């Protein structure tokens, strides 16, 4: 039985963790031993064990964001040994298991770093900039009511699939964290693409692209230089093809005259 009988092979690790008491407090790396760690633990369960021991020893546990622990809520996310969400492809920190590490390893754990994601405490950052990018136009205006029958609008399967690929974004911020420019292009582009390939998304397509791109800039994210780090870090494997779509839509939108008031943009 692979993977289920490995409790015996427990590991001893050394953690180097960023600790910072509050947003404006100074921070630094603090070392902690993490002994008797089972390879079947998730990365966050390993942190739970360390925290339990810290608490029992009268120290403050390491603060980190987490919630669903099944890779879909997007709450968790830390830099693990210099990679967003750690070494496994298409895997959030909560789904990363300790079998990816070996006995004696040293693990560096840091918060996402971006001007637009200020540290709140320890490994927790404020990602509300993402919400504001969505507010700028990441939606289809369809107030609750009685729209037409759902099947009145057939959508080609490839379009629906492409929309879904991009809608799979969990808003964790790994793309920003991994980008050498701390750019939010992949996040923004994924939403633009999700809505741009659906017929329902057409009426607001131009205003959406302009407004979201400009909000992304105003929030203090960097620009895209196509390093490709974001799509590797993305736990949902969203392709940087989305960024091409965003640029195309933005160029088209800039060439189109926008009626006054139609555009709730930031400028």
């Amino acid at each position, binding site marked *: 039985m692979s993977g*289920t009988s490995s409790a015996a092979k427990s590991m001893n690790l050394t953690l180097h963790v960023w600790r910072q008491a509050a947003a404006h407090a100074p921070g630094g790396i603090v070392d902690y031993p993490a002994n008797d760690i089972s390879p079947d633990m998730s990365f966050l369960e390993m942190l739970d064990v360390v925290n*339990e021991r810290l608490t029992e020893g009268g120290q*403050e546990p390491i603060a980190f964001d987490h919630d669903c622990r099944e890779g879909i809520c997007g709450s968790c996310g830390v830099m693990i040994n210099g990679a967003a969400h750690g070494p496994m492809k298409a895997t959030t920190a909560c789904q990363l298991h300790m079998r990816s590490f070996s006995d004696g390893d040293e693990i560096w754990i840091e918060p996402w770093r971006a001007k637009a994601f200020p540290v709140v405490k320890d490994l927790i950052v404020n990602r509300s900039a993402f919400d504001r990018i969505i*507010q700028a136009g990441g939606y289809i205006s369809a107030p609750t009511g*009685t729209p037409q029958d759902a099947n009145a609008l057939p959508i080609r399967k490839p379009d629906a699939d492409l929309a879904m690929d991009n809608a799979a974004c969990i*808003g964790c911020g790994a793309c920003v964290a991994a980008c050498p420019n701390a750019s939010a292009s992949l996040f923004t582009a994924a939403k633009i693409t999700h809505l741009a390939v659906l017929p329902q998304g057409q009426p607001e397509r131009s205003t959406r692209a302009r407004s979201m791109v400009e909000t992304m800039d105003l929030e203090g994210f960097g620009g895209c230089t196509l390093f490709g780090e974001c799509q590797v870090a993305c736990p949902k494997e969203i392709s940087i093809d989305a960024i091409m779509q965003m640029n195309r839509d933005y160029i088209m939108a800039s060439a189109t005259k926008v009626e006054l008031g139609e555009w709730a943009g930031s400028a």
Partner: protein
Amino acid sequence: MTITLDAKIPAGPLAGKWDKHQFDMKLVNPVNKRKFHLIVVGSGLAGASAAATLSELGYNVSCFCYQDSPRRAHSIAAQGGINAAKNYRNDGDSVQRLFYDTIKGGDFRAREANVYRLAQVSVDIIDQCVAQGVPFAREYGGLLANRSFGGAQVSRTFYARGQTGQQLLIGAYQALEKEIAGGGVTMYERHEMLELVLVDGKARGIVVRDMVSGEIESHTADAVILATGGYGNVFYLSTNAKGCNVTATWRAHKKGAAFANPCFTQIHPTCIPVAGGYQSKLTLMSESLRNDGRVWVPKRAEDSTKEPSQIAEEDRDYYLERKYPSYGNLSPRDIASRAAKEACDDGRGVGPGGLGVYLDFADAISRLGRPMIEERYGNLFEMYQRITDEDPYTRPMRIYPAVHYTMGGLWVDYNLMSSIDGLHVLGEANFSDHGANRLGASALMQGLADGYFVIPYTIGHYLASNKFEPVTTAHPAFVAANAAVEERTRRLLSINGTRTVDSFHRELGRIMWDKCGMARDAAGLQQALELIPKLREEFWRNVKVPGIGAELNQSLEKAGRVADFLEFGELMCLDALQREESCGGHFRTEYQTADGEAMRNDEQFAYVAAWEYAGEGQPPILHKEPLAFENVHLSTRSYK
């Protein structure tokens, strides 16, 4: 104060009740709507859809969530799908059939009128979500695809890969963000509700803790809407998110909201089994897997430690197909879960501790080919492999039941108002639609039905029917509630004992799972009712909560939630003890047929058990709302 339960079900034939009621309800003049301030607690499917819709109507809304963004509420984790009586497959579905399936699936412990309305608005939900851009799965012809789910013989489940909850929530979240941008909704992220405030018997506000600064704040409103989800984390291990808690509903309960059927909890049959003592949560594998997977255990206990490939076909017991030939692997959740438990109790369980059964895709892969299975379940298979390090394409999955959903919740009337005036409760937080067992793909349906299509009407009726004196946070009721929260926080921080919050939570969870889990009996429940108060007493004497109140303090957050679970767990056991029958997710071993099926007792227990809080140290008071079945015939559920 004593509670009177009036479900306020409109008169008239079932099919016309909601239409008639919509017409009978009072309306709020459009220009007056913005003068009303509403509080919505929770931003999942129910909360986000309600907050967005109420803001669209013109109300002034404040929405609170404990996560760092409303997009993270646990509705996001629902995988399989959402039911709707669209009958797009032409396979005989209808509002009436969805209604009947839901009532029957709930083992005849839900209100007919509420369930019928749910089935009626289910079709509008799909239309609404498509209009918002939810990328539901489609056929090559461009029309919406469907799949089957447990407890139904029609194909009525709409889905977006294995991420339906995520996509529906993102749809509601985007509508919410649009309203936030427009100023109709003020969003308070990382804020946890810790108290409900009543003024003159009406819910008029809440007290929250800003989880970043630690500040205790009061917020006033004309009505309060709770959409704070279920209480599955009372078991410590569940498929709920780590932060899910009972605090908001429990605080409301202690202020006078009746808590209905708390013992009705759903154990989901297809979760990844526990791997070790450090386990922090359980992961669900969508029930949709049972469309193509076959459940089995070895026929002989001595085979259970063998590799599955070493067990010959004739030595395998496909027990669901054997016991329930007409529904087979698609039997309802409670039945499938209990059957798994029986197999494991029988010594035939597989994997660590013998707590697992196989879910085998070998037949489906040979029949449909691997690419088709990848298309349908690829992401679920990947998730399984990440967690267990086993490849489900070549080796059957191991699954075991886990706590997943709670049908019980705050009692509400037909208008979704609790026994406190002005306090409305939506989604999993209320008790209303699923009876003793919820069918798969019905939670998303109920959350969105409540938020998009019910509360926007009924809240208007409440607001138009009442007079509201202006209140401020200086009102004595707010000052007192605020002081109570401060005091409680101070107490938790000052104990400085020796045990961590999690250790108490784990111990409570073990008691609940052993005594009030998949199978219950009077003796066990009575034991639990002795153990829980003792544990609670130790908690308040010996818990260790490091740090201070005026900062981000995750230990303090957990401590407050576990303190409430320690009170709530007792009510759950009391409720399970008084319900001397087996129905749906509530299985009392004393009440079963000769072949081990649940034995319902309609004469004595066809009621909603609604508990009233009677004060510190006082036993809660049981109120019974009788359930009248005028449109369905009460039958013994049979999926054979």
